[in-house]
Structure formats: structure tokens, C-alpha cells
């Protein structure tokens, strides 16, 4: 019995076969899914799904071929973006988007703090907890654009509907993450402030707040970034911002202007990302 065979009786037949092959120089990595039947089942169902999904798509190739020219035009327009001919609309739209973003983030975060406190299991009583978790679930399920449609119907066209939409979406996002953060806090400081006889507000202010503040600032900046990106979209349904200008330019096949707006969005997102990285480093 050679030393290499020691313990091989512990292995199953296919594993021993694998080892024997490896010794002959035909090593293969272990398969991801152990059972051969499951491997077959997964492969066949993936193939079946691809066929089914492909059947549901009816690509009109002649239309695509026609559109290719337009596609090339669009890609080319990124090399010659036209900032000037619609500069008035672009500036108004951008200014509106930025103000909407900032206002909505401030309102949303301000409202998300009480909801987040209420949704943290370790500091909120059970009825408050369920109520606040309900608000979070409703706010998170629907896309901003769907909420925007409803708010535009209620409050009329204009940036106010956009601000309310973004603030509403911010509540769900921020409150959920804040609540999770509060649930992860160390409980010793909480007990210490309680033990000194501090009131509820003092308890939150001196025990909870210092522990969650750096992350809260980081998340707010991240949400500011998301809200700006979303503000470019909700304009399509009339909720103000740069989206309306972008929508018009695309529908007019004025790709040079579209490219200019998209480039501006990309640059602003990049700048805010760089800035928030810097602030996060500074607060932590």
C-alpha cells in the first residue's frame, strides 16, 4: 500500500476515480453542484428558460437595422455634445433638479429619523415598531416614477410633486438603514445614560446619536446622490427637473443636446461621489 493511498477508503468511488485521474495528470476542479442529477436538472431548466424567454421577444430586425444609424448618431453625439443651443432649458432644468434634490433629501432625512427611531426594535415599543416598519415597506416597494405619477395627479405638475416623491422615497431608504444601524449599537452606553437618570431625549442624544451619526451622514450623502439621479427621471412624468428637458430632446432625436445633459448628469454624480467619499473619511 503506497502512502498516497492512505485514507482513500474514506472516499467515495467517484472521488477516488477523480484522484486517480489527477495522479495521471488529468486534474479537474470540483464541480460546483455535487449531485450529477441536480447538475443536469439545472442545465436543462436554464436552457428551457432561455428558449421560452427568447420566444416571448419578437425583435423586429428590420426596425433595428434602421435604428442602427440613429444608434451610431447617438454614440457619435457624445463626442460632439451640444451645450449651447438649449443652454437656457438645460440650466433651468439642472438648477431645478439640484434644488429639488437638496430640499427632498433634507425633508426626507428629517422625517426618516423619527421613523427610523420607531423602527428600531431595541428602543421602540412593539406597536410603534410595526407602524414604522409598515411605512418603510410601503415607501420601498414602489419605484420613484410610480409614486411621482400619483403625486403629480394629486399636487399638479411642477417641482413640488417631485420634492414630495423624492422625500417619500428617501424616508423608506434612510429609515430602514438607520433602524438597522440603531439595532446594531452597543447597549452599554444606552444602559449607562439610563442609569444616570437621563430622560428619553437625553438618552437618544447622548447614547444613540453618537453611535449612529457617522453612518447617518454617509447615508444621507449617498441618498443625495441617488435623489439627483432619480430627479433626472421623474421629470418624464411631469414632476419637474432636468428629466423633462432630456425627454424632449430624445423625442426630437436631438441627440447632441441629450448627450450634453447625460454628460452633465455623469459629471455631477461623479463629483458628488468624490465629495461624499471625502466627507465620509472626515466624519469617521
Amino acid at each position, binding site marked *: 500500500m503506497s502512502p498516497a493511498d492512505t485514507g482513500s477508503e474514506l472516499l467515495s468511488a467517484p472521488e477516488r476515480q477523480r484522484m486517480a485521474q489527477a495522479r495521471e495528470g488529468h486534474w479537474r476542479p470540483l464541480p460546483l453542484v455535487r449531485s450529477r442529477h441536480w447538475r443536469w436538472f439545472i442545465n436543462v431548466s436554464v436552457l428551457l428558460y432561455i428558449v421560452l424567454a427568447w420566444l*416571448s421577444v419578437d425583435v423586429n430586425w428590420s426596425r433595428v437595422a434602421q435604428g442602427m444609424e440613429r444608434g451610431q448618431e447617438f454614440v457619435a453625439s457624445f463626442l460632439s455634445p451640444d451645450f449651447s443651443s438649449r443652454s437656457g432649458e438645460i440650466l433651468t432644468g439642472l438648477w431645478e433638479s439640484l434644488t429639488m434634490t437638496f430640499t427632498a433629501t433634507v425633508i426626507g432625512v428629517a422625517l426618516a429619523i423619527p421613523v427610523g427611531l420607531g423602527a428600531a426594535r431595541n428602543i421602540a415599543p412593539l406597536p410603534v415598531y410595526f407602524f414604522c416598519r409598515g411605512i418603510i415597506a410601503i415607501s420601498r*416597494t414602489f419605484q420613484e416614477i410610480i409614486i411621482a405619477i400619483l403625486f403629480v395627479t394629486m399636487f399638479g405638475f*411642477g417641482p413640488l410633486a417631485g420634492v414630495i416623491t423624492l422625500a417619500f422615497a428617501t424616508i423608506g431608504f434612510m429609515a430602514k438603514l438607520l433602524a438597522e444601524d440603531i439595532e446594531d449599537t452597543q447597549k452599554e452606553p444606552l444602559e449607562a445614560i439610563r442609569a444616570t437618570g437621563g430622560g428619553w431625549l437625553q438618552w437618544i442624544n447622548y447614547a444613540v446619536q453618537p453611535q449612529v451619526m457617522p453612518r447617518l451622514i454617509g447615508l444621507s450623502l449617498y441618498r443625495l446622490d441617488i435623489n439627483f439621479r432619480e430627479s433626472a427621471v421623474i421629470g418624464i412624468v411631469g414632476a419637474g427637473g432636468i428629466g423633462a428637458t432630456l425627454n424632449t430632446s430624445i423625442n426630437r432625436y436631438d441627440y447632441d443636446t441629450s448627450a450634453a445633459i447625460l454628460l452633465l448628469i455623469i459629471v455631477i454624480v461623479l463629483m458628488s461621489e468624490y465629495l461624499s467619499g471625502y466627507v465620509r473619511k472626515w466624519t469617521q
Partner: protein
Amino acid sequence: MPVKHVNNVPVWQRREPLKQYAIWAGWMLGGMLFLLCWKVISDNTIWEFMYDAGTQAGSLIGRMIPPDWSITGSLMVPLWDTINIATVGTALGILIAFPLSFLAARNTTPHPALRAVALAIIVSSRSINALIWAMLLVTIVGPGIFAGMLAIALRSIGFVGKLLYEAIEEIHPTPVEALSSTGAARTQVLAYAVWPQIMPAFAGISVYRWDINIREATTLGLVGAGGIGLQMNAAINNLAWAQVATVFVLIFATVIVSEWVSAKVRHAVI
């Protein structure tokens, strides 16, 4: 410890005076900026529309309840389309994002110039919402599911690419060194030292993006890119709010199921 003397009695303060003033100034500047922004919003708002917002909201909800269940059957095909848009779109996005992330990661990129190009693609794809990609693609390839799939794919490239290249940059260097020292080729190092380390993250990221894409795919129909959003848009344009409510309920159910699936899969792989 900052202490303030009031009538010769030391009183504990949380912060040094200068720091406290700086914080106050920061709050004031922030407050002023907020008021300025609010003024811009207020100037651009037609406040007359606001006065009857409560009645509008009430009548809207009144017309939504009860939902019109009779159209549920006709919504099943659009729902299937929506799921296909999200799934095939995610798959296409991953196919492109996968090689891109290896080009963008500092430790696997073949050349810094290629890295810059890959990062630029990732950033542009990530900054632009799927709905905007869909608007563009509808004008290029025509309305329909195909445009929706491409839009989802284009948006997913940036998301998957960014998270994946960060995962690649965080791998342990020892297996890479060990394999390189045996004389393994570049592709072998990638396949046997890098790939096993990022596989769990890759699976998690892909499923997470699929979950987000299901949500986004429900709205793509608003700009003509197929799926259940088309029916929703038609119902909204007809002011058939009872039908809109049915679509909402279906979207809600689909999103809950996809979130559950994604949570299960992520739990299994990580």
C-alpha cells in the same frame, strides 16, 4: 474636558466653544441653503393646485378601491414579459460586466489605460437610470421588450461591474502568488486563484441586481419598452384607476416574491 464657569461653579460642556460655534454656523448655512432651495421650488409651483390636493387624493383612492380584478388574466403575459426583461437583461449585463470588472480592478488589469476606459464605462452606465436608457433605446431599436432588455442590461453593467471590481481588489494576494510561482499562465491564475475567491460575491451581486431589475422592469413600459408598465401607462392615460390599482397589487406581489428569492439565494451563497 470643556468646562464653563457659571457663578464660579464648573458646568460640564459637550464641546469646546469654538467647535460649538463652528457647528452652529454649519447648521445656519445649511438652513439658509434649504430656504433658498425651497424658494426656488415654491416659485415654480402652482399653489392653486395644492389647495384641493386632499380632495384629489381622496377621490383618487376612492376610484382605486376596489381594484378591477377582471383584467388580472390579461396582465399575466405582460407580467411574464416583465420578468423576462429583468432576467435576460441582468444576464446580458453580467456577461458584459464580468470581463469589464477584471479590466477595471487594479490588481488584474492588463494596462492602466484600459483600466481608465473600463472605469469610465462603469461610471457612465451607473449614473444613468434604466428608464433613460430605455427612452434612448426605444428611439433606436423601436418600442418593445428588446429595448427594455437592453436598457436593463446597460444599467446593470455599471452596478455589477463596480461591486465586482471592488470585490476583485479585495481578494487575498497569497493564492495568486502561490499559483504564479508554480508558473501558471495569466488565465490560469484568474481561473484558479481569483475566481474562487470572488464567486460568492459574484453570485450575491447578480441576484441582488436581478431583484432591483424586477422593480425597474415594471416601470419601463411607461416609455414604451414593454412589460406590465405598458398596461399601467394605458390605464393611467384612460384614468381607469381601478385597473391601475390591480397593476399595483400585481407589482407589489412580484416585488415581494423576487425580494424573497433574492434573500434566500444570497443567504445560501454567502
